């Protein structure tokens, strides 16, 4: 009897269902563990002795080229004698950052765009969605190449970067993230618009309007919280797509700059070592394995969230 009387919000409902999904929970733990490793490793390097730190410095070039995994280098070394384990962990920083920032960018643009289009309706909706259609029809790669090249030049020329190479470097990396997000918001916009369209006609929104609430108030207070669920799930599914796209750009040579590594650059390097004569398997298996595992985890997490949030599925 008490069960029925208790108020359980939709969010709590969802959380309960989510907890029952074993693969989603397992994935969540995996991601937390990975995150912990990524954060802890630089600290470990800092506080350990100089020999250990130097051995595992991801940028430290050494003479031990292409050595297979051993006690010293747990994932082996690459062409320059750099420790692959360390590079994978530092590369994770970049790849995950790409995923998060890119996803956030696509989230912000997509949600705002879709919400405004869906709520305003009429001509505004028409124009906004036509623009989405047009952008959809343009091959993404052209846009990305031009974006990276052009903004790269602008960064270089701009005054406030002069004399500060560190700032320039971080700006350039940020540019990559933003660029990736900028090409991924289209689907999000469409989905959000669809949701908002259906929400708009619901009773509570009508009531709000009748009471004289301003449009942006209604948007913020009623509409956006209600699309929260669907947005979260698509976030978890967009992130792997963005990380994969970054690895594709690295394959093209347009990703992050050396000697910084991302999983994409590590994997493209590793893949070039596949040949009939001799394969340095550790250059592919480890970065590739971690990438695939992380993407799997993100996908399972996203699916779990979607199953949990969607009222209709049993």
């Amino acid at each position: 009897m008490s069960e029925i009387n208790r108020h359980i919000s939709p969010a709590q409902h969802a959380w309960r269902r989510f907890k029952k999904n074993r693969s989603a929970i397992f994935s969540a733990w995996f991601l937390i563990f990975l995150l912990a490793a990524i954060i802890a490793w630089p600290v470990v390097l800092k506080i350990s002795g100089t020999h250990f730190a130097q051995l595992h410095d991801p940028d430290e070039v050494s003479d031990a080229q292409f050595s297979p995994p051993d006690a010293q280098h747990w994932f082996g070394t690459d062409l320059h004698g750099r420790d692959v384990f360390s590079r994978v962990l530092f590369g994770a920083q970049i790849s995950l950052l790409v995923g998060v920032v890119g996803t956030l960018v696509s989230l912000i643009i997509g949600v705002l765009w879709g919400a405004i289009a869906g709520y305003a309706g009429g001509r505004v909706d028409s124009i906004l969605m036509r623009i989405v259609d047009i952008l959809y029809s343009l091959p993404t790669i052209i846009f990305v190449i031009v974006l990276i090249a052009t903004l790269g030049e602008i960064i270089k020329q701009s005054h406030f970067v002069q004399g500060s190479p560190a700032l320039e470097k971080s700006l350039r990396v940020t540019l990559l993230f933003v660029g990736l997000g900028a090409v991924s918001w289209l689907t999000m916009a469409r989905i959000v618009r669809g949701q908002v369209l259906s929400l708009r006609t619901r009773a509570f929104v009508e009531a709000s309007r009748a009471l004289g609430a301003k449009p942006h108030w209604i948007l913020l207070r009623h509409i956006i919280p209600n699309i929260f669920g669907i947005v979260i799930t698509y976030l978890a599914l967009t992130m792997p797509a963005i990380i994969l796209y970054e690895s594709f750009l690295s394959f093209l040579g347009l990703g992050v700059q050396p000697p910084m590594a991302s999983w994409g650059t590590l994997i493209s390097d590793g893949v070039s070592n596949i040949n009939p004569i001799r394969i340095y398997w550790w250059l592919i298996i480890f970065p590739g394995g971690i990438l695939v595992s992380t993407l799997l985890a993100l996908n399972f997490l996203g699916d779990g969230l979607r199953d949990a949030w969607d009222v209709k599925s049993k």
Partner: protein
Amino acid sequence: MYFVNRLIFAIPLLLLISALAFALVHLAPGGPFDRERSPASPEIERNIRAKYHLDEPVWKQYLRYLGDLAHGDFGVSLKYRNQTVNDIIAQGLPVSLTLGGLAFCFAMAVGLPVGFITAARRGRWEDLAGSFFAILLVCIPAFVVAPVLILIFSIKLQWLPVALWETPCHMILPPIALGLFFAGKIARIFREGMLGAAQSEFVTAARAKGLAEHTLLLRHAVRIGILPVVSYAGPMLADLLTGSFVIESIFQIPGIGVFLVNSSLNRDYTVVVGLSLLYAMLLIGMNLMVDFAYTMLDPRVKYE
């Protein structure tokens, strides 16, 4: 009528796309004639630019381009100066179409059954294994799958050729490598669709009528469940048909996918705009077909 409307609307859309692509590619730093060996005299450089009208303001070049386009002339490639864009498309498109078409068939042939089984056996081991497999396919980048497949089937087992596109034997591995990712996606989408359909009013009504579960699923639920797949198939096909850069470079296949990327890197203005238009046309065409298929499959859908 609706479809005729859409077709008419496509024309200004294409124009807009051509303008956008034109503007974008001119925006990027570097030009098509920047070379490692600089020309012998400034006069030569001036001559080249004048010959291809690169010294005119961008809007004027665009109008000139539109004029040529009206005659069906997509222009001359600025990098491969003896080839016209029409040549490039005429040679590369059939190859990409074949590659994409085969990949599509493969993706459907693998994705649909997997999606169906994981939906029908939801929660049991078939679902877990199938879902894991499908998601796995979506998580591995193509430029990893292809070399690994080559390593196994061409180098170690020696069953298939390593690269190139000459005999039917050459046409087995590349479409598989290309289609695996999409097979995974289709499996997931179809599963979603089927699960949603199993709850829909149609199926509940049919079940109430007393139909066997088997017929239920196959006859009725599939018609609804396939809708999201059809919806996804449109843009997917357009992407597949314009070739995949990764697969075409690794297998050295003479399609247009390689051109799409390289022309941007080479600042080959005419090829970039020409291929963008081609891609847009394919996408619009595919979307139209998808909408048409929708009306066939879902009687609830009507277009005014």
